[in-house]
């Protein structure tokens, strides 16, 4: 299978090229197209930074990165990438429907492919049918994140970047959204990069989990979760093998911190 992302000796930092504080140093990473990658790591290890480089929000200082066989900039111009932030980032003055349709309202000038208005279909898919005319402050935290996911999916992106999207939600809502996300992933075949602080969430969702260490950010653990997954990439949280895998991830995370 072709790779959706290929990073070679990737250096990323803030500040000038000479004086930069390196957030990621010499990262090598290949992510298969259509796969679900969970990214774990302590604060400041560069998890979010990695997503920002892939999304063309940040330029690397050194090394190379290819996204869907192209430059991050070309991928962004094609709207082949969707981004879901930790805070839902819904615009409070736009209705739910208009938030989902934001990708149709802005950035059309530089868009290199046409995108359809699938807002109704996506609202239905995310369990938000009938909520289209509401304003974001009238929704629960979980519903707001669903709207944010629907908005990210509007352009049918081949790559979905999620930066701790469920971090602020309660456990029950989070588990429910995890299952919905897996169902969505199976249905769309989108490659997903999912940053989280939760070991259980990373293990439950990812076909593969990587752990990054901080100062500077580097890969210290790469775990294939597919052997533990049954139907539709789901795994039992009580399975001893899964618990052992989570303990392995925890040990890596402790080393990383």
């Amino acid at each position, binding site marked *: 299978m072709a790779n959706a992302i290929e990073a070679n000796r990737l250096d990323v930092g803030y500040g000038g090229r000479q004086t930069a504080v390196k957030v990621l140093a010499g990262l090598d990473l290949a992510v298969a197209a259509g796969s679900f990658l969970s990214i774990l790591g302590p604060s400041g290890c560069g998890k979010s930074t990695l997503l*920002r480089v892939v*999304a*063309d*929000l940040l330029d690397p200082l050194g090394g190379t990165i290819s996204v869907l066989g192209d430059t991050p900039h070309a991928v*962004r*111009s094609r*709207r082949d*990438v*969707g*981004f879901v*932030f*930790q*805070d839902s*980032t819904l*615009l*409070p*003055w736009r209705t739910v429907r208009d938030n989902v349709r*934001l*990708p149709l*309202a*802005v*950035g059309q*000038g*530089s*868009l290199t492919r046409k995108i359809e208005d699938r807002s109704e279909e996506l609202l239905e898919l995310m369990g938000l049918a009938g909520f289209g005319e509401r*304003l*974001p*402050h009238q929704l629960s935290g979980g519903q707001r994140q669903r709207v944010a996911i629907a908005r990210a999916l509007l352009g049918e992106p081949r790559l979905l970047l999620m930066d701790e999207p469920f971090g602020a939600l309660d456990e029950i809502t989070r588990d429910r959204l995890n299952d919905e996300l897996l169902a969505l992933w199976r249905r769309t075949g989108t490659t997903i990069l999912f940053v989280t602080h939760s070991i259980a969430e990373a293990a439950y969702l990812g076909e593969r989990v990587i752990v990054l260490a901080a100062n500077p950010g580097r890969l210290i653990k790469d775990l294939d979760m597919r052997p533990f997954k049954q139907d539709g990439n789901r795994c039992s949280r009580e399975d001893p093998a899964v618990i052992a895998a989570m303990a392995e991830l925890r040990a890596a995370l402790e080393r990383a911190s």
Partner: protein
Amino acid sequence: MRQAPLPPALAIALPVLGAASILFTWQFLLPWLGVPAYIVPTPTAIFGVFQKSFALLLGNLWPTLIEALAGFVIGNLAAVMLAVLFVHSRVLQAAYFPIVLFFNTIPILALSPIIILIFGLGMTPKIVIAAVICFFPTLVNMIRGLDSASSSEHELFRVLSATRSEIFWSLRLPRALPMLFSSLRIASATAVIGAIVGEWIGSDKGLGALIIQASFNYQSDRLYAAIVLSSSLSIALFILVVAIELRIIKY
């Protein structure tokens, strides 16, 4: 411990009763204490001026209203436009914002004679003074408002390849509106103050001029009526701003 909110009927009735109690005390207690009418006329005497000299009051309200409104619109519009310029050019902001800040420290009473020297005695200098007095709070609030979108909101627009003008119209401006309206509320009162200050310094028309004439002639009932009218004008402008705000900002 926080007190429980009042029942709605009481919440409306209490301020009315409060005002009535003060008016009642004013009407009966002050004359009884021997406070002369040329210092504090009774509410009924002030109300009497509205009946007797309605045409005079209206004739003086009109210029003040026009000056305050024009100053309000011009001052706020200029502030909004300069704020837009400043947030799009850090160089301009760094170069000129300190100068604007310095200007704001000059007391309006010191600035007014200069404005009148430049613009003469017509309505223009009063409009300029009202505009100047509205300008600064709106400029500061608007700059803050236009910069108040979060970094993830900016990143969202970047991911969507939004242009600078799209970011302005779809993100920065709507984000700035609540802060703009809070300064417009303040400006609705200060614009009237600006117009009146201008009329004090050089005019024979308007509520400011009426206040000066009435105090020189010891017509305190007329003076108080002019004060009531100018504060009613501020309140009317304030209500207008709030009504527009409620229509525009629904979140």
